[in-house]
């Protein structure tokens, strides 16, 4: 005999249905959110526990995630929905804390970028106690199941953040680690003291590059700095220029399979032509220019846009293009749809290239 309904669940379900009849048109959860926003079963949120300055323009934000948080792997990022000037903004940040901390807290480390709405808010303005929206951790910039014997990390600026998550999780004890990190000055090195302490203990070999005095790192310099870099599994994270150069170098040597990169922003190759974009279900029509992702244009018009990594990798923002043309900002590819089509497009890396109807 098989049992399909557990009495306990069924009772709970019926109680919930009864509660719904009393709270309609809102849900019982909307009332519970007023007192227990972090409870199990609620939309995933977190409460800011502390904000610690790391450098003059970077800070670590400690968050107590809701009960629904499923944990993370070192190197992964979390999407954060923060209200800045009353407007909800979603951004992805690497998790720098160790998985499974006893207090269940997680930490992200944020570098304030010039004119960065969210990063500046997180580094300079957000206060402990504030609620933020969260998503489950994601991203495949992680170590493989079997730890490689020799590892090279190539990072610059805030690109150190996902790597720090891996280092803190005990990687140096299991592998021979070299870290080549670039920052404008010694004081600008995020986690500088902690990295230097690791290097002093001999846990890793640290090569700091202070670009204000020594200039940008040229990838061919690696032949001298890390002579065996071609044999190492390499993880690189940093600005677009560095990653492009690294990818070219590894490809030229035929070892692209040993390189793993993480980009924080899409590379814009080619702008669209712009056009009139209609969000058919929301009944909103806007003029979008050829350089603005449709995601941003829609959000600015108050449309509830699904979103994800905002750099074209997670497919969390995909919606059907019913007709029209969009251009992929990363490679200039044109995608067109004729009436009746439902071509799925990534709004975070697509700009209008003509009149578009989007089903949203």
């Amino acid at each position, binding site marked *: 005999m098989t049992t399909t309904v557990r009495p306990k669940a069924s009772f709970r379900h019926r109680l919930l249905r009864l509660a719904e009849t*009393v709270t309609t048109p*809102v849900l019982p959860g*909307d*009332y519970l959110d007023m007192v227990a926003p972090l409870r199990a079963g609620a939309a995933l949120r977190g409460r800011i526990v502390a904000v610690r300055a790391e450098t003059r323009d970077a800070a670590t934000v400690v968050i107590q995630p809701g009960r629904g948080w499923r944990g993370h792997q070192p190197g992964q990022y979390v999407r954060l929905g923060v209200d800045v000037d009353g407007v909800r*903004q979603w951004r992805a940040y690497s998790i720098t804390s160790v998985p499974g901390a006893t207090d269940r807290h997680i930490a992200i480390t944020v570098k304030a970028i010039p004119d960065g709405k969210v990063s500046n808010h997180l580094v300079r303005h957000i206060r402990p106690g504030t609620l933020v929206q969260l998503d489950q951790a994601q991203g495949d910039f992680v170590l493989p199941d079997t730890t490689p014997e020799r590892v090279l990390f190539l990072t610059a600026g805030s690109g150190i953040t996902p790597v720090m998550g891996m280092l803190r999780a005990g990687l140096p004890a299991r592998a021979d680690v070299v870290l080549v990190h670039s920052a404008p000055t010694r004081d600008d090195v995020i986690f500088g003291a902690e990295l230097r302490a690791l290097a002093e203990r001999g846990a890793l070999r640290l090569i700091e590059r202070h670009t204000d005095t020594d200039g940008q790192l040229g990838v061919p310099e690696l032949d001298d700095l890390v002579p065996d870099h071609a044999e190492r599994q390499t993880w690189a994270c940093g600005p677009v220029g560095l990653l492009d150069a690294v990818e070219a170098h590894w490809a030229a040597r035929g070892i692209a399979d040993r390189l793993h990169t993480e980009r924080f922003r899409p590379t814009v190759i080619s702008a669209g032509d712009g056009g009139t974009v209609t969000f058919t279900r929301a009944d909103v029509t806007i003029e979008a220019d050829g350089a603005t992702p449709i995601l941003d244009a829609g959000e600015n018009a*108050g*449309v509830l846009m699904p979103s994800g990594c905002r750099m074209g990798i997670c497919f969390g923002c995909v919606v059907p293009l019913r007709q029209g043309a969009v251009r992929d900002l990363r490679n200039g590819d044109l995608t067109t749809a004729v009436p009746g089509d439902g071509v799925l497009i990534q709004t975070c890396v697509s700009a209008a290239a003509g009149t578009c109807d989007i089903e949203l």
Partner: protein
Amino acid sequence: MTAIQNKARNPIAHLSAEDIEIIGKELDAIRDRVIAERGERDARYIRKVIKTQRTLEISSRAVLLFSLFPPAWILGTAGLAVAKILDNMEIGHNVLHGQWDWMRDPKIHSTTWDWDHVSPADQWKHSHNELHHRYTNVLGKDNDLGYGIMRVDEDQPWSKGHLGQPFYNLLNACFFEYGIAAYDLELGQNLKNGGHKTPEFRARARAVGRKIRRQVLKDYIVHPLLSGPSFLTTLAATFTANLIRNVWSHSVIMCGHFPSGVETFEKTSIEGETKGEWYLRQMLGSANISGSRLLHIMAGNLSHQIEHHLFPDLPSNRYREIAPEVRALFDRYGLKYTTGSLPKQVASAWWKVIRLSFPNRRRKNADSVTPALVSAGA
């Protein structure tokens, strides 16, 4: 009231086409400024109102579980009535207008919001946002003028049926949410022309049925049942709270476009209407209610009907702030900013409903037709 084009003294005859466009530009500037400023303070405001409403609703319903005791009945009924008014007016009406969409909070958004009302949100949005706000006070286009059943303008033809309209209006006030649902369904017209047989109408009617079922189940069955021995008194309490909410909303909304001083417009006047002319029609087609901050919140800031009609999607808490500036603009261009206390405006609106239930005494200056808006804008 007579359509502005048919009046002996046209209240906008002194405005040139340039004046009207400048008025439009000045109003655009006010709007742009508010949009640039809107931010955390506004977000805090709407979240506070929603939190207050929910706290009040749930605690009033808890108190009503003991409604057998008269003090509990009075307290619970009053609290629930206020909660329902806040839900419909300052929160529901304004969220469904998209006034808070800019916050990008999916919990407070015109596309996801639902209200304590029998008209489904999407049907109300269509008839209210798309039709009434677009065709404000245009005879034969704006069904809000008398809700399609009453005669509220001299230029609407009289028939014997209108004799009963003071009574219909009272009935509509008591069961206003049902009146709105029927209105959003365009029930009268659809029954007349056979539109009620189409699958589209049936789907919409089913949606209304679902909303009614849920509202009735909550207010008249589950909540009284949960009250146990207080079943009947809780039933009376929820009925009374709904009645108070309905009469209040009806009164506030009647004050928006019915009081004397409000202008109506001929259908032809909106052909080729410019942005400035559209603004002007909203300015003259709406009336405010003066009063305290509390009155404005309870009225969903529809007491700033003029400001709301000029800028239907600006956050409601901003209307009070821009009102002095808007009024100064009216004064500068010699236009009448219609406003008055709640009792005065309600009386004025009711007087019109009663007066126009009878045929016009005489047609005033029927020959002096001045196609004002058209000529001014041309």
